[in-house]
């Protein structure tokens, strides 16, 4: 395979559109509202694979809002991405690791009992079966291989649910680089099993007690670490967020999910699904599932954010539903913030979705209407988790359970349709939370 996605075109017409777009994006970049965007032109650019553009933007979103100290490091990273993400030797090594170490391709499972219960044809893309138990490993092994080529002396990562931390620790052990993982103190408690795993895999876990003590604070601390050693340290960012080129790197490395699922669906059913559904925290598993389907206009795409306890400010982590445009942690996207531009604390029962921002490409896909995003509450996600356990013999991560909750809702309204669900990870890590919720009084 010559490219990771095999589908970046650059027709003359596309380039013309792109130039037009970059002018619009420069004008729109600093706005705190989205009035006056030409969504038809943005949609055409998406269909022509024009994003990210040369400014690292997805339409008005994205960009690179970082301290000056990190600019040369991001320039080097961008040069490395251009050089290696299409390089046959690099791709050979990456794909060999994906198949022999990660265990790809992951299975596509027909969910027979859920199909019967929900009245639709339900298929699961099983990222829970990937090594270390979630989709995060696709990104981590790719980035750590890149870090090695770029001559990094150490790797740092942030983690919420601990899955990206575990995946990065494992990838670093495999490749032979030291690894430091920043994790919020709140998350260390609710995802305790993953803390031990990271330590066993040789990583140093740095508890973060600043800010909200969850994923956002962990990203802030990782950025502070990187600012202190921009030359020797590689920052392995775990979701489709952050400054350019991270949202692009993460999409490219995660698109393996959607590419495999698309082929597997065609092989198993002869047709594409009617809808593909994934949960959205920063948005890496969702963009990985969606990206290879974006041009299949017959396939609806649905992202599920964390609806938490309800719709009030601070009660959820649904940035696409309730956010306003702004700049956080290196990129311009939709953010949960107050009128003064201060970032809101969020709530979700799932550590991996508990983040006040979202990847810039999702902000664009929502703006142009190519992907629809909804929220599933804590309670809906936990109910779905229990149902998937009983029906299919699979314990999904609480994050992934949000996708199941959304799928159930959609299936009931669209009987007989074919539904592809991104099962982003397994729920073993969630036992401390499940003991306090579903299993309360049971054990």
């Amino acid at each position, binding site marked *: 395979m010559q490219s990771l996605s095999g589908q970046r075109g650059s027709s003359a017409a596309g380039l013309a559109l792109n130039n037009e777009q970059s002018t619009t994006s420069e004008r729109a970049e600093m706005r*705190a509202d989205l009035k006056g965007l030409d969504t038809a032109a943005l949609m055409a650019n998406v269909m022509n694979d024009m994003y990210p553009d040369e400014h690292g933007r997805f339409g008005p979103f994205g960009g690179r809002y*970082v301290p000056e100290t990190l*600019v*040369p490091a991001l320039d080097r990273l961008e040069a490395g991405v251009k050089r290696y993400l299409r390089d046959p030797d690099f791709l050979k090594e990456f794909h060999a690791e994906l198949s022999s170490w990660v265990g790809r391709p992951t299975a596509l499972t027909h969910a027979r009992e859920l199909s019967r219960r929900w009245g639709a044809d339900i298929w699961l893309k099983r990222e829970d079966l990937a090594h270390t138990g979630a989709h995060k490993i696709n990104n981590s092994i790719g980035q750590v291989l890149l870090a090695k080529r770029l001559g990094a002396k150490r790797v740092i990562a942030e983690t919420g649910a601990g899955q990206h931390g575990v995946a990065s620790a494992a990838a670093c052990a495999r490749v032979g680089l030291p690894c430091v993982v920043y994790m919020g103190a709140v998350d260390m408690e609710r995802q305790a099993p993953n803390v031990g795993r990271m330590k066993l895999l040789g990583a140093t876990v740095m508890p973060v007690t600043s800010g909200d003590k969850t994923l956002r604070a962990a990203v802030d601390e990782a950025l502070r670490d990187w600012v202190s050693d921009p030359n020797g340290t590689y920052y392995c960012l775990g979701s489709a967020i952050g400054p350019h080129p991270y949202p692009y790197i993460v999409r490219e490395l995660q698109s393996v999910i959607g590419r495999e699922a698309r082929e597997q669906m065609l092989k198993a059913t002869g047709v594409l699904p009617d809808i593909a559904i994934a949960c959205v925290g920063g948005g890496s598993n969702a963009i990985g599932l969606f990206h290879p389907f974006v041009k299949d206009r017959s396939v609806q795409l649905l992202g599920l954010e964390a609806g938490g306890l309800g719709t009030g400010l601070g009660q959820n982590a649904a940035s696409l539903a309730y956010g306003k445009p702004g700049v956080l942690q290196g990129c311009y996207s939709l953010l949960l913030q107050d009128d003064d531009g201060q970032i809101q604390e969020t709530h979700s029962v799932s550590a991996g979705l508990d983040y006040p921002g979202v990847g810039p490409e999702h902000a664009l896909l929502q703006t142009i209407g190519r992907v629809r995003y909804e929220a599933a509450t804590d309670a809906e996600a936990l109910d779905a988790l229990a149902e998937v356990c009983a029906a299919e013999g699979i314990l999904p991560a609480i994050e992934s359970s949000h996708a199941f909750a959304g799928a159930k809702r959609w299936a009931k309204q669209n009987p007989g349709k074919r539904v592809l669900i991104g099962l982003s990870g397994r729920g073993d890590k969630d036992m401390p939370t499940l003991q306090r919720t579903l299993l309360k009084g049971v054990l």
Partner: protein
Amino acid sequence: MLPRDTISAAINAARAKGQPAIVAFMTGGFPDRISFAKHLHAVADAADVVEIGVPFTDPMADGTTIQRSSRAALAAGTTLKWILAELGAQTPKPKAPILLMSYLNPLLAFGLDELPQAAAKAGVSGFIIPDLPFEESADMRAALEPVGLALVQLVTPVTPPERLAMLCKASQGFVYAVTMTGTTGKNVDLPEEVVEYMQRVKAVSPLPVCAGFGIRSRKQVERMGPAVDGVVVGSALVEVLERGEDPAAFLRGLKAS
């Protein structure tokens, strides 16, 4: 004189007296909103330029001291609107030119259409925006230009030579030369390389150059002094205010007698 030129003029005037200018940083609304104005005047009397930090929930370029003062200021209800209103209400005006140091998001939320006028009216001479690299700054520069407010560029020890020259040319007010790779507030010893790096910045900068991050003591000021036009003192001053000590005495103590 345009507001932004008052900054260079104040630094050059201090430098002309044989001492590096003192650029003093204080978090807006800290240690509390009531005493902020009193401290501001004291600091503006003792320093040559004053930077006022607009508190933000996610100060990614800042160390623990400024994280702490930002959190306290936010908890006390400090906003950019309040800071501008407080500055605008001062009679007499603080004696030194004032810059706002703010992460981008509070400025975006205020609105780029209203911000330049509102800031100019409040007596602000310019902005330092640590998460707005030059490549993303076209709109901000265009917004500030008509009212003559400065957008100060930062340079760092890892800035490549060509970029260093470009940033020094693009800067307004002064060039903010970050002493080290890292966040604010550390205690840096200043090895010979740092002095050499400051000399490299000076050599290509048409504007005065001020060294900042980790400057806390008279010894450091004396060491940096000959290589630069000014020094920025931030976390150390915030800690003085935190301890309830006299900020003016601290700032005067930084200059050789």
